[in-house]
């Protein structure tokens, strides 16, 4: 492990973000082309290495209380100081975020080349990365809020990045709804502090009663609402399709892959580790079901590819919530595995949508058609993504969805499983429709000289497609990745004793 890896993982993106304007100015003065892009790629790859270097330390079971997994800022030990606590769940989220961000930055190299103000674009991208890393790695609930807020503010700005009418409108909507959500989270933190008098997650978890009492249910509900807005849980989802449609495709890929993961992570951390509230899990499962079904039904009606993907993102998050809400070990395993897979194929599909926009200039499916002849590789990759997301074997979506189905039956909720199966069929239906209207059918005349997606854009998509197949053929591999995270969710006592040193 690289020494000080946890803090470096947060500081490096911040450093890169602050340095980016200077790099941009220097590059303009000296006339160096693409300096920002190369700098960004270098920074994000280093970030990936730092995060990956934490994996072996966790694998070897170096969880010695007060040692590596708990990193104490400024040398103040918890519960007084701010600490970074790394267990399986934190690292799981951090690895997804770092991986997806690396691919998105590589993808932006070509995807964003026609835009102005790339200094700001990369600065915001790195700020968002720093925010996500902070949420993933911190062990302090207020710190979590601050990083969450950094992430949200940068994402409002990124949604409005192109300053077209859709982006302004989407950004306003997103900002109002989401700042309501973060205010609600802050209120929850204030209530918790008033009740317990601590801000450290482990310390709070230790002091809060195990059974959810009526006094505790208020902050819990506030937290679930706040994070639910960020992951677009159904009654709170109205901002999401607009934001995903209006954001540049690279940003939409980042949102669907990484930001949604962080939202789920925060929710799981708060509901299961902090409150130990497995009892309200069933409410989460029901919310997940509603989210899943409504998302799929709305997706069926869409005529714009990015909007369709946004609604399908809502629907997939529903599966994750269902799995996590079941509360059994198999259910949590399935939910987290599905979160992992969702990050892979949803990022990939948004990247393909971006590639189509890059070449054709629109993502409206009525104006597309017959692109199979022009972009065969892209079409094939889209097919892989569509089959994976619909849960068709042998792709990764099948493995995780199957786990959730089995978990539903084992938990004595066969109705949930049946609804999930029907939604899966709906998913297949709308993706077939999308595939049909984009790549098959009649080709409009003006599309005849469209070329294949450029290679730098194709590379991250291909990598993700390979992952889709690998985790589909060898599901055990995926489950091995998920297991530490699943154990961390189930075992909040281990987290507490690791942070507080067995106190």
């Amino acid at each position, binding site marked *: 492990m690289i020494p000080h890896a946890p803090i470096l993982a947060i500081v490096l993106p911040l450093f890169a973000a602050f340095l980016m304007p200077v790099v941009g100015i220097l590059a303009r003065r000296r006339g160096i082309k693409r300096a920002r892009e190369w700098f960004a790629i270098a920074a994000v790859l280093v970030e990936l290495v730092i995060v990956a270097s934490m994996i072996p330390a966790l694998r070897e079971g170096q969880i010695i209380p007060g040692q590596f997994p708990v990193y104490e800022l400024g040398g103040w030990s918890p519960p007084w100081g701010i600490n970074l606590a790394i267990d399986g769940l934190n690292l799981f989220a951090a690895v997804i975020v770092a991986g997806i961000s690396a691919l998105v930055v590589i993808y932006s190299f070509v995807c964003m080349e026609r835009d102005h103000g790339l200094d700001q674009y990369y600065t915001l991208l790195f700020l968002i990365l720093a925010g996500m890393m902070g949420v993933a790695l911190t062990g302090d609930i*207020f710190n979590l809020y*601050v990083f969450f*807020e950094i992430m949200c*503010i940068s994402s*409002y*700005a990124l949604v*409005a990045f192109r*300053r077209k*009418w859709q982006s*302004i*409108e989407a*950004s*306003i*909507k997103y*900002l*109002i709804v989401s*700042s*309501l959500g973060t*205010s609600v989270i*802050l*209120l929850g*933190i*204030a209530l918790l*502090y*008033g009740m317990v008098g601590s*801000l450290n997650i482990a310390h709070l978890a230790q002091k809060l009663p195990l059974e959810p009492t009526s006094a505790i249910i208020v902050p819990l509900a506030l937290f679930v609402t706040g994070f639910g807005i960020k992951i677009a849980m159904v009654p709170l989802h109205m901002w999401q399709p607009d934001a995903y449609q209006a954001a540049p495709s690279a940003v939409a890929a980042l949102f669907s892959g990484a930001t949604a993961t962080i939202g789920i992570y925060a929710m799981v951390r708060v509901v299961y580790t902090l409150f130990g509230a497995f009892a309200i899990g069933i409410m989460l499962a029901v919310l997940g079901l509603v989210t899943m079904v409504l998302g799929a039904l709305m997706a069926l009606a869409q005529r714009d590819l990015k909007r369709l993907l946004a609604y399908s993102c809502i629907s997939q998050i529903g599966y994750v919530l269902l799995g996590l809400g079941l509360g059994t070990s198999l259910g949590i395993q399935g939910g987290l595995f599905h979160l992992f897979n969702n990050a892979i194929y949803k990022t990939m599909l948004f990247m393909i949508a971006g590639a189509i926009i890059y070449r054709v200039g629109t993502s409206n499916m009525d104006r597309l058609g017959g692109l199979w002849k022009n972009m065969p590789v892209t079409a094939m990759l889209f097919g892989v993504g569509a089959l994976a997301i619909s849960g068709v074997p042998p792709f990764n979506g099948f493995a995780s969805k199957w786990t959730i189905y089995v978990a539903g039956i084992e938990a004595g909720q066969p109705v949930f499983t049946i609804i999930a199966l029907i939604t899966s069929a709906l998913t297949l239906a709308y993706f077939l429709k999308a595939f049909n209207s984009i790549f098959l059918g009649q080709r409009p005349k003006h599309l005849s000289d469209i070329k294949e997606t450029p290679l730098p854009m194709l590379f991250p998509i291909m990598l993700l497609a390979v992952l889709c197949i690998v985790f589909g053929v060898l599901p055990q591999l995926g489950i091995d990745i998920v297991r530490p995270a699943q154990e961390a969710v189930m075992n909040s006592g281990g987290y507490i004793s690791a942070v507080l040193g067995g106190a």
Partner: protein
Amino acid sequence: MDFNYIIAMLLVALGLYCLLLKRNLIKIIIGLAVLTDGIHLFLISLGYRSGGIAAIVSGEMFSDLPGFAARAVDPIPQALVLTSIVINICIVAFALSLAIYSYRHYGTLDPSKLRRLKE
């Protein structure tokens, strides 16, 4: 002391009402400011103890440290509020610039009219 909490919660409710029901972007942003002000008041009131003194360097601190620690107000909520104020001003600044943009595009500040004007 209870009165502080009542007013804080009233401010939060007022902010929520403004955020959800007003039909003007600038009013909505004012509502957001009121909402966070309420939360700040709540947090500061949490840290206060009656007859307390501010937790800053003073002469008393040098002479009688344990006594100072026992009488000082809780500084943690103050740190939280400071951070939150910073975040809030960022959000307000960004939201206002978005409001100006939307006015230039649509000539209205009513968020419910935005989409209708385009089509």
